[in-house]
């Protein structure tokens, strides 16, 4: 039997609906941004939704998990929220609804829809970098992105207060949305970026954040999806890290029935430091996948990854970490760790650390552990009067805190710790 070649992988109900969204896109400009979006649409048309035979999606079979594609969120004019104190951007139903009323010198906020209307070739290349471009869900975001925010921080500017991008929805029927945000950190600038996700309706969110760090820029990114998390969420982080720059990203994941976080980070300048860490708290039937691709394209880069999963019920976690060290990237120093606590017999974890090293003078290592709470430690704590649940909580908290301690901003660190405590309370 021969199988007819089928370049187009549009088969399922969801894929057909998504192809319809692409076809019905409002006419994009002929400029470079429009060109990039057409190219991204082509990637999706060719690949469709990824499934288990696509290596990077082996443990998260999106084609079968995403049965239908909910209608695109309408850009509702009612999607307005009061501006708050602090530098907070609100993306509601995929639309940039709130920008900070005023911003400190050297920091500029622009709604993506406005930036796209006027941006040239440089802007298009920044918004649609060639990092992770052949991942079809990421391409889908690129093709369908219409709004979000662009944050530019000028060279040498140090932002004291964290900038928050908060994604949420209005109430109502199920919908899907494709917001995209761009952060451009000038040389020597520093910035703390908090990315928080919530929703007030059933939502399929496919969000992307693109970060460009020029020479010496220092960016701390804290991703938090919690109590009112989107039901299905694909969150893509694309980063280009310049010489001597530092990019630290931490993710606290709790909630949502399906989450795929994928980070494609390219070290493009020497002596850049990359730190990716996170804690995923999974229960019920939740499925959360963290996939990292770190591309050491030039010498003397450093990367550290530490991901902790705490899984109970019949939830499942995935950690995939690929560290690519290209032939010229000598003196790369990489270390990746994945540690998992399984709290129930049906909880599951899949680990796939990968090192692809083409340079000979590098130090790279990885380790993955999956275990249960230590019964001897539990007994010891209980002999001191701690009820079992409290003793377990203390051990789980200690396990997760080791990663949370890496959050540099005190307020954000505390809010991650508080989210952990809240989650633990829901277990009892």
């Amino acid at each position, binding site marked *: 039997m021969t199988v007819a070649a089928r370049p187009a992988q549009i088969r399922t109900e969801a894929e057909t609906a998504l192809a319809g969204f692409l076809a019905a896109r409002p006419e994009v400009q002929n400029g470079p941004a429009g060109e990039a979006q057409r190219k991204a649409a082509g990637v999706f048309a060719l690949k469709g939704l990824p499934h288990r035979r696509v290596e990077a999606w082996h443990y998260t079979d999106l084609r079968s998990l995403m049965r239908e594609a909910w209608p695109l969120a309408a850009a509702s004019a009612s999607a307005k929220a009061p501006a708050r104190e602090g530098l907070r951007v609100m993306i509601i139903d995929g639309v940039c609804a709130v920008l900070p009323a005023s911003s400190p010198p050297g920091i500029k906020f622009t709604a993506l829809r406005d930036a796209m209307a006027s941006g040239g070739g440089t802007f298009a290349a920044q918004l649609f970098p060639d990092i992770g471009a052949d991942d079809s869900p990421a391409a889908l975001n690129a093709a369908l992105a219409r709004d979000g925010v662009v944050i530019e921080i000028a060279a040498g500017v140090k932002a004291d207060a964290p900038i928050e991008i908060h994604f949420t929805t209005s109430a109502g029927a199920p919908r899907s949305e494709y917001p995209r945000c761009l952060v451009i950190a000038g040389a020597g600038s520093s910035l703390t970026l908090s990315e928080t996700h919530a929703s007030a309706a059933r939502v399929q969110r496919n969000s992307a954040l693109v970060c460009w760090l020029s020479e010496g820029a220092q960016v701390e990114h804290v991703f938090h999806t919690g109590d009112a998390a989107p039901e299905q969420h694909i969150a893509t982080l694309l980063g280009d890290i310049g010489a001597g720059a530092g990019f630290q990203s931490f993710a606290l994941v709790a909630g949502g029935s399906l989450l795929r976080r994928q980070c494609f980070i390219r070290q493009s300048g020497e002596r850049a430091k990359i730190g990716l860490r996170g804690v995923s708290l999974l229960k019920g039937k939740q499925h959360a996948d963290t996939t990292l691709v770190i591309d050491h394209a030039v010498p003397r880069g450093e990367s550290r990854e530490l991901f902790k999963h705490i899984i109970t019920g019949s939830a499942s976690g995935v950690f995939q970490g690929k560290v690519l060290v290209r032939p010229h990237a000598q003196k790369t120093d990489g270390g990746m760790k994945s540690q998992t606590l399984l709290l129930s017999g049906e909880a599951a974890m899949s680990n796939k650390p990968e090192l692809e090293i083409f340079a000979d003078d590098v130090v790279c290592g990885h380790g993955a552990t999956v275990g249960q709470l230590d*019964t*001897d*430690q539990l*007994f*010891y*704590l*209980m*002999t*001191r*009067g*701690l*009820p*079992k649940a*409290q*003793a377990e909580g*203390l*051990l789980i*908290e*200690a*396990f997760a*805190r*080791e990663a949370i301690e890496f959050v540099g901003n005190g307020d954000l660190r505390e809010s991650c710790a508080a989210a952990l405590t809240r989650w633990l309370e829901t277990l009892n």
Partner: protein
Amino acid sequence: MNKSMLEIRNLHASVGGKEILKGLTLSVKAGEVAAVMGPNGSGKSTLSYVIAGRAGYEVTQGDVLLDGESVLAMAPNERAAKGLFLAFQYPLEIPGVTTHTFLRTAMNAQRRARGEAELTTADFMKVMNAASGKLGIARDMLRRGLNVGFSGGEKKRLEVLQMALLEPRFGILDETDSGLDIDALRIVAEGVNALRTKERGFLVITHYQRLLDHIVPDSVHVLSAGRIVKSGGKELAHELEKNGYRDYVADAA
């Protein structure tokens, strides 16, 4: 008061399908310090774990009563709430939980179990600083992970600190003297002696007379092959120091 506080009646217990305690009977009165001595592997730690309620230690016969009430069906924390405390022969290391946080959590857990209000930070600091000062425990140790990287002697001091803070009604010390230097032994013994009252009982497991010079026992019991084979006064410990266990091991075998 002559009623026994801790009463162990014909206790049979197995670990991993192997019977370790084989009909052990022992009773300790309020105000009494009972020393238990015995060769390696005779079942001393097993006895302490069975009393504290460790999983995997199966009691096949007999009973353990505290103040006339059987503790065998209780979880370890319920036994702790009733006033039982075990100072471990090998205290566990718990990374990520600072000693300070742990002590406070434990004190408050027991206060809650007794229906008392939790300690304020100031009150906790006061009692903890006083108690750790007496035991020669440095402040920076309390900021480290519980028992993590502590020396053998430091761990034992910390066990006694926990006992001093939790003020149990009945304390079991499993080889608390091992790993202690001569000065620490005296300090720790003073810590235990300070807790000796008419209402409180102790079971002190040791291999050496030296500890019993400092914590003078009211009774001494020889445990061999899972049973108490001889009981006597403090002079029995001296005799053991001189002659070893040969008379008793032969009996039991």
